[in-house]
C-alpha cells in the first residue's frame, strides 16, 4: 500500500513538472521564435499587412487612396447572352442617386437571363450576404435581423411584387434601416441575388 502511494506521488509530480515545463514557454500573444523574421514581416509592401510606419506616405500608411474622381474598372462580367441569343451589355455606370428608387424600378431590368444556375448562384450569394438578417426564407427572421429589427418579410403583400430595379437599388444603396451593400457585392452578384429574392417573394 505504501509503496504504491509513493509511486503515485512520484508519477503525479513528474506529470506536473512536465506540464509546467511544456506549457511555461507558450505565450498566446507571441508568435514564438522565427527563422528569418524578414520572411514573416516583409520589407516589401504587402496588401492588408503593415508592420511598421511608412516613412514616405505622409499618413504613415503603405496604402494610398485613389486620386479623387477615379472610376473603378469593372472586374466582373458585364456582357450576358440572352435567351433569344442577343447579347445585353450591362456596362452599367450605375449613376442613379440614392433617392431615385422609383426611376430604378422603371428603367432597370435584370441583364442576366433567369436560369437554374443563375438562381442557384444567387442563393449562395444570398446565404453569404443577406441570410443573417433576412432569414433563410426571406421572412426577416435571421439571427441578426431579430436584434437589428425592422427587417421585412419578402412574401408579405407590400414586398412580394417588388421588381428587379427596386431590389437592385436597395442592395446598392440600402433602404429604410438597411445600409448600402455595394462594397460587398458587385453588380453581377447583385443581379444574381435579385433572381433568388424573386424566388423568396413567392414565400415557399
Amino acid at each position, binding site marked *: 500500500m505504501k509503496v504504491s502511494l509513493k509511486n503515485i506521488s*512520484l508519477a503525479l509530480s513528474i506529470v506536473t513538472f512536465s506540464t509546467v515545463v511544456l506549457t511555461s514557454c507558450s505565450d498566446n500573444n507571441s508568435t514564438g521564435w522565427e527563422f528569418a523574421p524578414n*520572411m514573416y514581416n516583409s520589407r516589401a509592401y504587402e496588401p492588408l499587412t503593415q508592420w511598421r510606419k511608412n516613412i514616405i506616405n505622409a499618413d504613415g500608411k503603405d496604402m494610398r487612396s485613389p486620386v479623387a474622381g477615379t472610376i473603378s474598372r469593372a472586374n466582373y462580367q458585364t456582357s450576358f447572352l440572352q435567351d433569344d441569343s442577343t447579347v445585353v451589355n450591362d456596362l452599367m455606370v450605375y449613376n442613379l442617386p440614392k433617392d431615385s428608387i422609383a426611376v430604378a424600378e422603371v428603367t432597370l431590368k435584370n441583364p442576366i437571363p433567369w436560369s437554374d444556375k443563375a438562381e442557384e448562384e444567387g442563393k449562395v450569394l444570398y446565404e453569404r450576404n443577406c441570410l443573417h438578417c433576412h432569414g433563410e426564407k426571406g421572412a426577416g427572421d435571421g439571427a441578426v435581423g431579430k436584434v437589428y429589427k425592422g427587417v421585412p418579410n419578402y412574401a408579405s403583400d407590400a414586398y412580394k411584387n417588388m421588381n428587379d430595379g427596386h431590389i437592385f437599388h436597395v442592395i446598392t444603396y440600402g433602404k429604410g434601416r438597411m445600409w448600402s451593400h455595394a462594397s460587398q457585392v458587385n453588380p453581377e452578384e447583385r443581379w444574381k441575388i435579385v433572381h433568388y429574392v424573386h424566388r423568396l417573394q413567392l414565400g415557399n
Partner: protein
Amino acid sequence: MIENNSSVVLQSEKVGILHYINMIRKFYKSILALSVAVSISIGYVAAQDSTSIASAAPAGGGDVAKGEGLFKNNCAQCHAVTAEVVVGPGLAGIEERRDYAWLKNWINNPMGVIGSGDKYANELYLKYNKTQMTAFAAFGDEEVKSILAYVKSASTPVATAPVAGAVATTPAETGGGTFINVILVALLVIMGLVLVALLGILQLLNRLSGADAGAADTSLSFGEKLQASFKNIAANKTVRSAIVWAFILLATKATFDGMYGIGVHQGYAPKQPIAFSHKLHAGEMKINCAYCHTGVYKGKQSGIPSANICMNCHNAIKRESPEIQKIYTAIETNKPIEWVRVHNLPDLAYFNHAQHTNVGGLECKNCHGEIEKMEVVQQRSSLTMGWCIDCHRKSEVNGKDNGYYAKLMEAHSAVSKGAMKVQDNGGLECAKCHY
C-alpha cells in the same frame, strides 16, 4: 477496495461504516426526490399560468385572427402592439391617438400624408429620424380594421395586467428563475453530500493506515508524517535516479519540440485592438464568413473588413458599447483599425484563398478550426509545409462540372484507376508554392 480492507478491521467497525454509508445514501435519495418533486410542481405552475394568459386574450371574432396574420406578416417587423418602440412607434392605444380615416390614409400612403403637410404626420416623421414607412396601398377597409382590432385585443391584456392578472403573471415571469434556483440548490446539496462521503472515505483510510502503522504514529501530526514520508522518498536511490532520468528525457524532448516550433505560430492568439468576438458574430449570430471577409472566394487574401461593413449593423446595434465606439472613432478620425494579423505565412510560400475555397471547395474551418467558437481568434493549424503536403496528398480534385479540369481528368483516368488527388495535379511541385 473498501470491502476488502475492512475485512481486516474489526467487524463492529465495518458495520458502523456501512451503516454510515447507508444513511448517506438514504439522505441523498430523499433530497433528490424532493428536488425533483419541487421542480416538477414549479414547471406545472408555470405551464398553467402561460395557458391561462393565452386564453385570457379577449375574443374578438374572425377579424382579430385575420388581423393577427396580417400584422405579423406586414407590421411586426417595425411595430409592437405594446407601447414599445421597435423601429416605428408602439401601437398600443393607436385608435385613441388618431381617428380611423387618418390611419387608413397613412397605412395606404404614408409619404403622401407627409407630403400633404399633415402636422402630426410630419412631426412623427421627424421624431423617427425620417425613416419612411412602407406603403401598404393594397389594404382596404377590411384589412385595416382587422389589423386595428388585433392591435387593440393584443395590447389590452398587457395594459390591464397590473390590475387583473398581477397575481397570475408574477409566478409565470419568475418561474424560469425559480426553476434554475431549485436546480442550483439541488446541485449544492449534492455537492455537499459528495463532500461528506469523501470525508468519510478519508477517515476510513486514515483509520486503516493507522491500524497498519501501529499506535506510535498517531502521536505525530499530519505535517510531520508528510515530512517523514518525503524524506523516505528522497533517500531512495531508485527514486533519485528515476527523477534525474525523467528530467534528462523531458529536457531533450523540450529542446526538440522547441526547435521544431521555430517559425510555427500554432496557438498564436494575439490581443486585438477591439475585442471582436467571432464566437458571437459567426457563432451565435450566424453571420457568414464571406460577409466580412469579402475576398475569401474571389482573391488571394480573404481580407479584413473595412469599418463600413461593421456599420451595416452597428449603426443601430450596441452603439454605446466602448468597443463599438472604437470603430466610430476610427471612422471619425479616418485612422485604420490596426488589427493584429494572426495567420501569417512567410514570404517564401505562396497561398491563395480563392483556389482553395472556390475551386477546391474547402470550408474555412478546414484550416482555421472552429472560429465560430473562438472568443479570441487563434491559429489552430500549424501551417507548416508538412501540413500542406499532407492535405495535398489526401485530397481529391473536385473536377465535377469544371471544364477547366475536364481534359486533365480524362488524361488521369487513362493512366490511373484511383481518383485524381491534388498531388497528381502538381500539388507537390516545389514551384507551385515557392517561387
